[in-house]
């Protein structure tokens, strides 16, 4: 479903973040992206949802070359990809429910569909009871659940997560991983950059290691492979 060919990315300041990445990710896969800090993991991930555009190379997402996508077509791509961040990126003035609904409102879903989908997805992440609370009334783990709920509410084909457990304690991290497992079990592809060795070594999935902007290892069911 996602295929990269010789993806090279040089930032405006001259830093080469990815130096020829080749990879193929199938529908329904769960992929960990690991590697040392500054290796290019976030850059790799950002190019998939077109936050960054590769300097050269091809990124094919379901037959579309994202690298050549017109600015006008980006919104359509983004609707097919859910994104989760380390820092949640919730709107503090909106309730849990509103934060999730926001993602549908801005793509002009009907109110009826919004109600249905938001209720459903809040149940999935286990936040039905906290729907009326505000982000600052929630724990970090709960906030991350809200952000995950928002990322999947439009039923994307892929969920991309950049260190989703980076700000959470180990206990909470496991809960969050459980949510991702659930989403993956429904057939959604998951691509997750992480430094969480415990998680990678326990819940085994495909592991792609990036170092110095290139893929140095790509192993199904592999381990984290670095000391922390």
């Amino acid at each position, binding site marked *: 479903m996602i295929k990269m060919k010789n993806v090279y990315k040089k930032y405006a300041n001259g830093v080469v973040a990815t130096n020829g990445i080749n990879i193929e990710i199938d529908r329904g896969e769960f992929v960990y992206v690991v590697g040392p800090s500054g290796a290019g993991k976030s850059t790799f991930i950002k190019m998939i949802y077109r936050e960054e555009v590769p300097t050269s190379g091809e990124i094919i997402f379901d037959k579309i070359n994202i690298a050549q996508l017109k*600015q006008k077509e980006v919104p359509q791509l*983004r*609707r097919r990809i859910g994104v989760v961040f380390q820092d949640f*990126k919730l*709107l503090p003035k909106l309730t849990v429910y509103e934060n999730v609904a926001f993602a549908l409102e801005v793509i*002009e879903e009907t109110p009826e569909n919004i109600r249905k989908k938001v209720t459903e997805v809040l149940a999935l992440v286990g936040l039905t009871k906290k729907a009326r609370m505000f982000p600052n009334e929630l724990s970090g783990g709960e906030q991350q659940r809200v952000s995950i709920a928002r990322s999947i509410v439009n039923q994307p084909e892929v969920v991309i997560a950049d260190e989703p457990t980076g700000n959470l304690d180990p206990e909470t991290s496991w809960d969050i991983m459980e949510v991702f497992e659930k989403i993956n079990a429904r057939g959604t592809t998951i691509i997750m950059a992480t430094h969480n060795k415990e998680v990678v070594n326990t819940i085994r999935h495909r592991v792609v290691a990036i170092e110095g902007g290139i893929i140095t290892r790509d192993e199904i069911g592999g381990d984290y492979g670095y000391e922390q």
Partner: protein
Amino acid sequence: MTFASISAVTVTLLLVGVFIVMMMNLNKIATNLEEDVEIKVLVDLAANDAAVKELEEKLKSNPNLTDVQFSSNEEELEIMIKGYGEEFALYKQGNPLRHVFYVKAATPQDTAKVAKEIEAYDSTYEVKFGEGKIEKLFNVLNTGRNIGIVLIIALLFTAMFLISNTIRLTIVARRQEIEIMKLVGATNNFVRIPFLLEGIWLGILGALLPMILITIAYFNLYDYIQPKLEGELFQPLDKTPFIFQLNGLLLATGIFIGVWGSFMSVRKFLKV
């Protein structure tokens, strides 16, 4: 900031409005004057009837001229007697006056040029017209217009700049919201339109006061001045439809400033 940008639009449009009222009325006066500018062609004393006839034909066939009218020296004297008194009747013995042709330039601005042309004709003694006067008026009008236009353009840019700054502040304040909107696939227009609307609102709010003030001022001024100018050559422009057109123009300009101002910052800060 919001107040500053609305005020900037207000000040700009007030000046634009006053400027237009003045220019349009001056223009009208100028046109009135122009229409009245006659060229007086004095015929050479030596010219016989045939020569006068020839001159008349020449004037009449010149496409740059209209309204060619002959006035014999006797008629001229009558005019003089009427204008200055019976004493001039003395001159009936030996009329010192010349035959005259009164003509008008087809395009009033060309009056001076056409007058020169006529001077070259045979049998003309002198060609006179409101020389200098209209030219001076046109010069004043043009200079005024140019200064006004430069001033107004500068003000328009200031207003746009202030609006774009105001919008930028809103964009910055809503940075996170916009980031998420774009992340979940809101279309560029969906992201952009609220800011364009904000700009339009600022423009409309800024236009309101100038529209009201200028309308009231013009109605009062007109009602005050118009009766005093009854029967005069100069007449102020009629209140309607002029003032409605002006209001439409001010509103449109306000909206335009708003749209441009917001468009600039949306383009720069949203990258949509």
